[in-house]
Protein backbone atom coordinates (compact mmCIF):
# COMPACT_ATOMS: atom_id res chain seq x y z
CA UNK A 1 0.00 0.00 0.00
CA UNK A 2 1.65 3.20 -1.12
CA UNK A 3 1.19 5.76 1.63
CA UNK A 4 0.82 8.81 -0.51
CA UNK A 5 -1.96 10.15 1.76
CA UNK A 6 -1.01 11.20 5.27
CA UNK A 7 -2.28 8.20 7.20
CA UNK A 8 -2.88 8.60 10.94
CA UNK A 9 -0.20 7.00 13.10
CA UNK A 10 -2.49 4.23 14.32
CA UNK A 11 -3.35 3.12 10.82
CA UNK A 12 0.32 3.14 9.90
CA UNK A 13 0.88 0.80 12.84
CA UNK A 14 -1.75 -1.61 11.48
CA UNK A 15 -4.70 -0.68 13.69
CA UNK A 16 -8.19 -0.19 12.27
CA UNK A 17 -10.40 2.80 13.07
CA UNK A 18 -12.79 0.67 15.12
CA UNK A 19 -9.97 -0.58 17.34
CA UNK A 20 -8.68 2.97 17.76
CA UNK A 21 -12.13 4.28 18.61
CA UNK A 22 -12.77 1.51 21.14
CA UNK A 23 -9.43 2.08 22.83
CA UNK A 24 -10.19 5.81 23.14
CA UNK A 25 -13.63 5.07 24.57
CA UNK A 26 -12.19 2.63 27.12
CA UNK A 27 -9.57 5.12 28.25
CA UNK A 28 -12.22 7.80 28.74
CA UNK A 29 -14.43 5.38 30.69
CA UNK A 30 -11.54 4.49 32.97
CA UNK A 31 -11.16 8.14 33.93
CA UNK A 32 -14.71 8.57 35.17
CA UNK A 33 -15.64 9.33 38.77
CA UNK A 34 -16.94 6.50 40.85
CA UNK A 35 -20.68 5.91 40.43
CA UNK A 36 -20.47 6.68 36.70
CA UNK A 37 -17.47 4.43 36.22
CA UNK A 38 -19.18 1.26 37.41
CA UNK A 39 -22.26 2.07 35.29
CA UNK A 40 -20.12 2.64 32.22
CA UNK A 41 -18.08 -0.55 32.65
CA UNK A 42 -21.19 -2.67 33.06
CA UNK A 43 -22.79 -0.98 30.06
CA UNK A 44 -19.98 -1.76 27.68
CA UNK A 45 -19.58 -5.47 28.28
CA UNK A 46 -19.62 -7.44 25.07
CA UNK A 47 -20.93 -10.98 24.85
CA UNK A 48 -21.07 -13.05 21.74
CA UNK A 49 -20.94 -16.70 20.85
CA UNK A 50 -19.00 -17.96 17.87
CA UNK A 51 -19.53 -21.27 16.16
CA UNK A 52 -17.36 -22.47 13.32
CA UNK A 53 -19.16 -24.37 10.59
CA UNK A 54 -17.73 -27.42 8.81
CA UNK A 55 -19.53 -29.48 6.16
CA UNK A 56 -22.70 -27.50 6.61
CA UNK A 57 -22.99 -28.24 10.33
CA UNK A 58 -22.13 -25.94 13.19
CA UNK A 59 -19.61 -27.11 15.72
CA UNK A 60 -19.94 -26.41 19.43
CA UNK A 61 -20.16 -22.64 19.98
CA UNK A 62 -17.65 -20.80 22.14
CA UNK A 63 -18.95 -17.92 24.22
CA UNK A 64 -16.72 -14.89 24.42
CA UNK A 65 -17.54 -12.12 26.79
CA UNK A 66 -15.88 -8.77 27.18
CA UNK A 67 -12.93 -9.62 25.03
CA UNK A 68 -10.30 -6.91 25.34
CA UNK A 69 -8.92 -5.21 22.26
CA UNK A 70 -5.92 -6.96 20.76
Amino acid at each position, binding site marked *: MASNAAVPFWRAAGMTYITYSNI*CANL*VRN*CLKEPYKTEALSREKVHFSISKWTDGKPEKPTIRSDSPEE
Partner: protein
Amino acid sequence: MLRRASMLLACRPILAARARPFSTDLPAAPSADATFTEAWTKVIPNMDPPKTPLSFMQPRPPTPSSIPSKLTVNFVLPYASELATKEVDMVIVPATTGQMGVLPGHVATIAELKPGVLSVHEGSEMTKYFISSGFVFIHANSFADIIAVEAVPLDRLDVNLVQKGLAEFTSKLSSATTDLEKAEAQIGIDVHSALNSALTG
Protein backbone atom coordinates in the same frame (compact mmCIF):
# COMPACT_ATOMS: atom_id res chain seq x y z
CA MET B 1 -42.93 33.14 13.61
CA LEU B 2 -44.72 35.28 11.01
CA ARG B 3 -41.30 36.00 9.51
CA ARG B 4 -40.56 32.27 9.08
CA ALA B 5 -43.96 31.74 7.47
CA SER B 6 -43.39 34.47 4.91
CA MET B 7 -39.83 33.14 4.28
CA LEU B 8 -41.26 29.69 3.56
CA LEU B 9 -43.87 31.08 1.20
CA ALA B 10 -41.21 33.08 -0.60
CA CYS B 11 -38.74 30.23 -0.99
CA ARG B 12 -41.19 27.59 -2.23
CA PRO B 13 -41.51 28.85 -5.86
CA ILE B 14 -37.71 29.44 -5.94
CA LEU B 15 -37.02 25.82 -4.99
CA ALA B 16 -39.32 24.52 -7.73
CA ALA B 17 -37.73 26.72 -10.40
CA ARG B 18 -34.10 25.89 -9.48
CA ALA B 19 -32.67 22.85 -11.24
CA ARG B 20 -30.43 21.38 -8.46
CA PRO B 21 -27.17 23.16 -9.30
CA PHE B 22 -25.15 21.56 -6.46
CA SER B 23 -25.46 18.11 -4.98
CA THR B 24 -25.33 19.62 -1.50
CA ASP B 25 -28.56 21.52 -2.10
CA LEU B 26 -31.14 18.82 -1.60
CA PRO B 27 -34.90 19.04 -2.00
CA ALA B 28 -37.13 17.49 0.65
CA ALA B 29 -36.86 13.72 0.79
CA PRO B 30 -39.97 11.74 -0.25
CA SER B 31 -41.95 10.20 2.57
CA ALA B 32 -43.26 7.22 0.61
CA ASP B 33 -41.56 4.78 -1.70
CA ALA B 34 -43.16 5.53 -5.06
CA THR B 35 -41.36 2.91 -7.16
CA PHE B 36 -42.05 0.18 -4.60
CA THR B 37 -45.78 0.90 -4.39
CA GLU B 38 -46.07 1.00 -8.19
CA ALA B 39 -44.28 -2.30 -8.62
CA TRP B 40 -46.45 -3.84 -5.86
CA THR B 41 -49.76 -2.71 -7.30
CA LYS B 42 -48.74 -4.04 -10.70
CA VAL B 43 -48.16 -7.52 -9.32
CA ILE B 44 -50.70 -7.65 -6.46
CA PRO B 45 -53.45 -5.11 -7.17
CA ASN B 46 -55.83 -6.45 -4.54
CA MET B 47 -53.71 -6.02 -1.42
CA ASP B 48 -52.50 -2.76 0.05
CA PRO B 49 -48.74 -2.36 -0.26
CA PRO B 50 -46.94 -2.77 3.05
CA LYS B 51 -45.25 0.22 4.60
CA THR B 52 -41.56 0.54 3.86
CA PRO B 53 -39.03 1.89 6.39
CA LEU B 54 -39.13 5.19 4.52
CA SER B 55 -42.70 5.87 5.62
CA PHE B 56 -41.79 5.39 9.28
CA MET B 57 -38.99 7.90 9.12
CA GLN B 58 -39.46 11.64 9.18
CA PRO B 59 -38.70 13.05 5.73
CA ARG B 60 -35.52 15.08 5.39
CA PRO B 61 -36.35 18.78 5.48
CA PRO B 62 -35.39 20.64 2.31
CA THR B 63 -32.45 23.02 2.10
CA PRO B 64 -34.03 26.41 2.64
CA SER B 65 -32.92 29.14 0.26
CA SER B 66 -32.15 31.54 3.10
CA ILE B 67 -30.04 30.54 6.09
CA PRO B 68 -32.15 29.35 9.03
CA SER B 69 -31.66 31.02 12.36
CA LYS B 70 -30.98 27.86 14.37
CA LEU B 71 -28.89 24.76 13.88
CA THR B 72 -30.72 21.47 14.53
CA VAL B 73 -28.46 19.02 16.30
CA ASN B 74 -28.80 15.26 16.73
CA PHE B 75 -26.16 14.05 19.16
CA VAL B 76 -26.21 10.28 19.55
CA LEU B 77 -24.21 7.65 21.39
CA PRO B 78 -24.41 3.87 20.93
CA TYR B 79 -26.48 3.51 24.08
CA ALA B 80 -28.44 6.77 24.28
CA SER B 81 -29.54 9.79 22.33
CA GLU B 82 -28.14 12.87 24.08
CA LEU B 83 -29.77 15.53 21.91
CA ALA B 84 -32.51 14.75 19.41
CA THR B 85 -33.33 17.46 16.88
CA LYS B 86 -32.46 20.14 19.37
CA GLU B 87 -32.36 23.67 17.97
CA VAL B 88 -29.23 25.49 19.05
CA ASP B 89 -27.26 28.55 18.04
CA MET B 90 -23.84 26.97 17.62
CA VAL B 91 -21.84 23.86 18.38
CA ILE B 92 -18.06 23.63 18.59
CA VAL B 93 -16.80 20.17 17.69
CA PRO B 94 -13.29 18.78 18.21
CA ALA B 95 -12.48 17.76 14.64
CA THR B 96 -9.13 16.18 13.78
CA THR B 97 -8.30 19.39 11.94
CA GLY B 98 -8.95 21.49 15.05
CA GLN B 99 -11.89 22.95 16.95
CA MET B 100 -14.60 23.59 14.40
CA GLY B 101 -17.48 25.96 15.06
CA VAL B 102 -20.72 25.05 13.32
CA LEU B 103 -23.30 27.77 12.79
CA PRO B 104 -26.60 27.56 10.92
CA GLY B 105 -25.92 27.67 7.19
CA HIS B 106 -22.58 25.85 7.53
CA VAL B 107 -21.42 24.21 4.32
CA ALA B 108 -22.16 20.47 4.15
CA THR B 109 -19.21 18.70 5.79
CA ILE B 110 -18.19 15.33 7.14
CA ALA B 111 -15.55 15.56 9.82
CA GLU B 112 -13.84 12.92 11.92
CA LEU B 113 -13.58 13.86 15.58
CA LYS B 114 -10.58 13.47 17.85
CA PRO B 115 -10.81 13.11 21.64
CA GLY B 116 -11.85 16.55 22.86
CA VAL B 117 -14.57 18.80 24.12
CA LEU B 118 -17.88 19.37 22.35
CA SER B 119 -19.71 22.52 23.42
CA VAL B 120 -23.32 23.25 22.60
CA HIS B 121 -24.29 26.93 22.74
CA GLU B 122 -27.95 27.76 23.17
CA GLY B 123 -28.80 31.36 24.01
CA SER B 124 -26.60 32.20 26.94
CA GLU B 125 -26.07 28.64 28.15
CA MET B 126 -23.29 26.32 27.10
CA THR B 127 -23.12 22.58 27.74
CA LYS B 128 -19.80 20.79 27.41
CA TYR B 129 -19.18 17.09 26.82
CA PHE B 130 -15.90 15.24 26.46
CA ILE B 131 -16.08 13.02 23.37
CA SER B 132 -13.80 10.03 22.92
CA SER B 133 -14.00 9.94 19.12
CA GLY B 134 -16.65 9.91 16.42
CA PHE B 135 -17.91 11.78 13.42
CA VAL B 136 -19.95 14.85 12.66
CA PHE B 137 -22.11 15.11 9.54
CA ILE B 138 -23.28 18.61 8.73
CA HIS B 139 -26.00 18.74 6.11
CA ALA B 140 -26.82 21.59 3.80
CA ASN B 141 -30.18 22.14 5.52
CA SER B 142 -28.48 23.15 8.82
CA PHE B 143 -28.90 19.79 10.47
CA ALA B 144 -25.87 18.40 12.24
CA ASP B 145 -25.52 14.76 13.26
CA ILE B 146 -22.84 14.19 15.86
CA ILE B 147 -22.10 10.58 16.62
CA ALA B 148 -19.67 9.59 19.33
CA VAL B 149 -18.75 6.33 20.99
CA GLU B 150 -18.47 7.80 24.48
CA ALA B 151 -19.41 11.29 25.64
CA VAL B 152 -19.37 12.43 29.24
CA PRO B 153 -20.12 15.79 30.85
CA LEU B 154 -16.87 17.23 32.19
CA ASP B 155 -17.89 17.07 35.84
CA ARG B 156 -17.95 13.27 35.72
CA LEU B 157 -14.21 13.05 35.05
CA ASP B 158 -11.72 12.42 37.84
CA VAL B 159 -8.67 14.63 37.47
CA ASN B 160 -6.36 12.32 39.47
CA LEU B 161 -7.13 9.33 37.28
CA VAL B 162 -6.47 11.45 34.21
CA GLN B 163 -3.04 12.55 35.42
CA LYS B 164 -2.13 9.08 36.56
CA GLY B 165 -3.10 7.74 33.14
CA LEU B 166 -1.04 10.40 31.39
CA ALA B 167 2.06 9.53 33.41
CA GLU B 168 1.49 5.82 32.82
CA PHE B 169 1.20 6.12 29.07
CA THR B 170 4.14 8.50 28.79
CA SER B 171 6.29 5.86 30.45
CA LYS B 172 4.75 3.15 28.23
CA LEU B 173 5.75 5.09 25.15
CA SER B 174 9.37 5.19 26.15
CA SER B 175 9.39 1.47 26.93
CA ALA B 176 7.38 0.38 23.86
CA THR B 177 9.06 -1.87 21.31
CA THR B 178 6.66 -2.83 18.52
CA ASP B 179 4.83 -0.35 16.30
CA LEU B 180 1.50 -1.43 17.76
CA GLU B 181 2.61 -0.82 21.35
CA LYS B 182 3.94 2.59 20.38
CA ALA B 183 0.66 3.43 18.68
CA GLU B 184 -1.34 2.34 21.71
CA ALA B 185 0.84 4.36 24.04
CA GLN B 186 0.54 7.37 21.75
CA ILE B 187 -3.24 7.03 21.72
CA GLY B 188 -3.19 6.90 25.52
CA ILE B 189 -1.12 10.06 25.67
CA ASP B 190 -3.38 11.88 23.19
CA VAL B 191 -6.56 10.96 25.01
CA HIS B 192 -5.24 11.77 28.47
CA SER B 193 -3.72 15.07 27.44
CA ALA B 194 -7.00 16.03 25.79
CA LEU B 195 -8.80 15.06 29.01
CA ASN B 196 -6.30 17.05 31.03
CA SER B 197 -6.67 20.21 28.98
CA ALA B 198 -10.45 19.82 29.03
CA LEU B 199 -10.45 19.68 32.82
CA THR B 200 -7.91 22.43 33.41
CA GLY B 201 -8.67 24.75 30.47
